């Protein structure tokens, strides 16, 4: 069955699609992948120091996240899951805010970016992407919606309902599944008895594409093509990006409990998405050693500055938790906020240190 869904590849000896990515875009994709890995490594360290909460790193999935997001236009809608810091950054969420969110200091989005708050419950944001796409179609807006989720997410009822709705209504939506092999400790073989995830597209009457998820340029191209199909009323697409979660599910997880260490070697080595793109760009003449070095240094500087700024950012007033629940704060919440303010005032008076 998997032969019926060949792996779309642009880079390397098994390439089956021409490289159509503009040199400048390819370099930007590389730059953001390096930034994402730098950010992950830094954040894992900060978590160990207790300065950041439980954190889900993207290690190993940089190509899928960054390549796909670069294929979008700013007017498109993005519905991310919790492991998509890189994708939301590419789509316009200020990097500073990604850091603040990781520190539990702010909401998951800011600025003008068309990015929904990251969905924590699995796959429940897929119907949102369908609705956003349907709204765009109804309002004659030239835009698509994309939802990010993982292999475990395909087991949820909302995955089925969303793809089914999308097929029936021909919604201009892209379902981008990062099959990273593991849903915390459970392998993909426990999510489905089908040899691939992409073949589920057939059951919904929608397009399905299986892509090398560690080939950033392939990820870019398949999303770009899915976007063009969606906008020319050819309906939604399910993309299965085959990748691997090199790190733990979150910083609270210990993968040595459930998967053999040797499984990682290939994904860390020859399959590593960043070194693959670097070699590809070097061979194409789109990147020099010096440029690669500069990109790495710039990433460190940017991450350090953003983290520094976030660490020093003044705490947002606790009362803010009430602020946006409703557009206009109802009386019962005004009274409850007053209750909190009295508690805080008493706490401050007694010389307590707010966390």
């Amino acid at each position, binding site marked *: 069955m998997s032969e019926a869904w060949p792996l779309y590849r642009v880079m390397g000896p098994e390439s089956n699609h021409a490289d159509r990515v503009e040199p400048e875009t390819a370099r930007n994709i590389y730059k953001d992948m390096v930034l994402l890995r730098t950010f992950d490594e830094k954040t894992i360290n900060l978590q160990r120091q207790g300065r950041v909460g439980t954190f889900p790193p993207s290690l190993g999935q940089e190509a899928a996240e960054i390549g796909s997001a670069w294929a979008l236009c700013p007017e498109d*809608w993005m*519905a991310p899951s919790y492991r998509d810091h890189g994708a939301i950054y590419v789509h316009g969420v200020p990097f500073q805010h990604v850091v603040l969110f990781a520190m539990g200091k*702010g*909401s*998951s*989005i*800011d600025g003008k970016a068309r990015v*929904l*708050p990251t*969905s*924590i*419950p699995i796959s*429940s*944001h*897929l*119907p*949102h*992407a*369908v*609705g*956003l*796409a*349907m*709204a*765009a179609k*109804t*309002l004659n807006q030239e835009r698509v*919606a994309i939802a990010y989720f993982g292999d475990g997410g395909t087991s949820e*009822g*909302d995955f*089925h*309902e*969303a793809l*089914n*709705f999308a097929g*029936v*209504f021909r919604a201009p939506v892209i379902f981008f599944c990062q099959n990273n092999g593991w849903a915390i400790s459970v392998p993909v073989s426990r999510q489905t008895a089908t040899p691939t995830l992409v073949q589920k597209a057939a059951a919904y009457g929608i397009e399905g594409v299986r892509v090398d998820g560690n080939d950033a340029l392939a990820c870019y191209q398949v999303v770009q093509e899915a976007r063009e199909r969606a906008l020319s009323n050819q309906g939604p697409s399910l993309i299965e990006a085959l990748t691997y979660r090199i790190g733990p599910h979150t910083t609270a997880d210990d993968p040595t409990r459930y998967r053999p260490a040797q499984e990682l070697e290939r994904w860390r080595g020859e399959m590593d998405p960043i070194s693959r793109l670097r070699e590809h760009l070097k061979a194409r003449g789109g990147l020099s050693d010096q440029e690669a070095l500069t990109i790495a240094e710039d990433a460190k500087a940017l991450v350090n500055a953003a983290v520094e700024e976030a660490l020093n950012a003044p705490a947002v007033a606790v009362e803010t*938790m009430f*602020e*946006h*629940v*409703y*557009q*206009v704060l*109802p*009386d*019962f919440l005004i009274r409850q906020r007053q209750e909190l303010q009295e508690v805080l005032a008493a706490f401050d008076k007694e010389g307590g240190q707010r966390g």
Partner: protein
Amino acid sequence: MAEINAVTAINQALLEMMQVDPRVVLLGEDVGPNGGVFRVSEGLWQQFGDQRVMDTPLAESGIVGSAIGMAIGGLRPIAEIQFMGFLYPALNQIFSHLGRVGQRSAGKFRVPLVVRIPYGGGIRAPEQHADSAEAMLVHTPGLKVVVPSTPYDAKGLLYAAVEDPDPVIFLEPIKLYRLGRMEVPSGRVSVPIGPARVARGGRDVTVVTWGAMNHLAMEAANELAQSSISVEIIDLRTLKPMDTKTIAESVQKTGRAVVLHEAPRTAGLGGEVVASIQDEAFWWLKTPVRRVTAYDVPYPPFAWEDWYMPTKERLVRAIQQALAD
């Protein structure tokens, strides 16, 4: 002015709002050519077509989930859940997302979504077609919940719900759909979300209720009036945010209260009403507040429903006890 029932009042409100605002769309099961199983959306698909009146696949989570997306994306969706007993697959959307988007997006996104849900019993419906699960929805932060009990309020509250920037659960008591007609003007009718309605003025005891139970309260009040007992009936209309001020003012006047609802008792909304009376009218109370509710059992086969639901006799007895103490 013509006298109309609640189904027609809701249908008129939908029609008028869809004519005025192209962002208003309907979605749900059988809402299209069939006009909804209760005929609430009668004629709308014929007038507005597939793109604005959408028969969806049978998937309640998909209905509410996609409607959340539509609302964020600039539409004013009105999603219909066919019966409250079929709402539960959508609870993940409602609990996990619907009421949280405003806070989680720091106010960048609002969800102007109305979820219409026919609910309630006493209609000889098949199993699981008569639930009253309003307490779960009222308990969920970020939502507003309304329950009209007259055709006029049904129209006015639906206007208010669709115009509201935040998610509103719009509960439609099935039993009242065709029970009683009244004059309802054409065009926009204004019934704001929030204020309760004093359905009947009285001085001896306050009955706080909502939805179809208003009619039971009215019957009991009429009966007790013959014994010169004067019952004040508060129809909450909006369950969240709840108008505790109107409840308190009434109880401060009467000194006695009975809360009446058709949902099961334990952790039902009646407990919340009692707590609000305790907070705001405790020193005026002459007797303990009583609850008349359904029993804490799954909604039974309809041969037993008249005994499961509150009866006039139970309500009259509770009122008499409140007065006797």
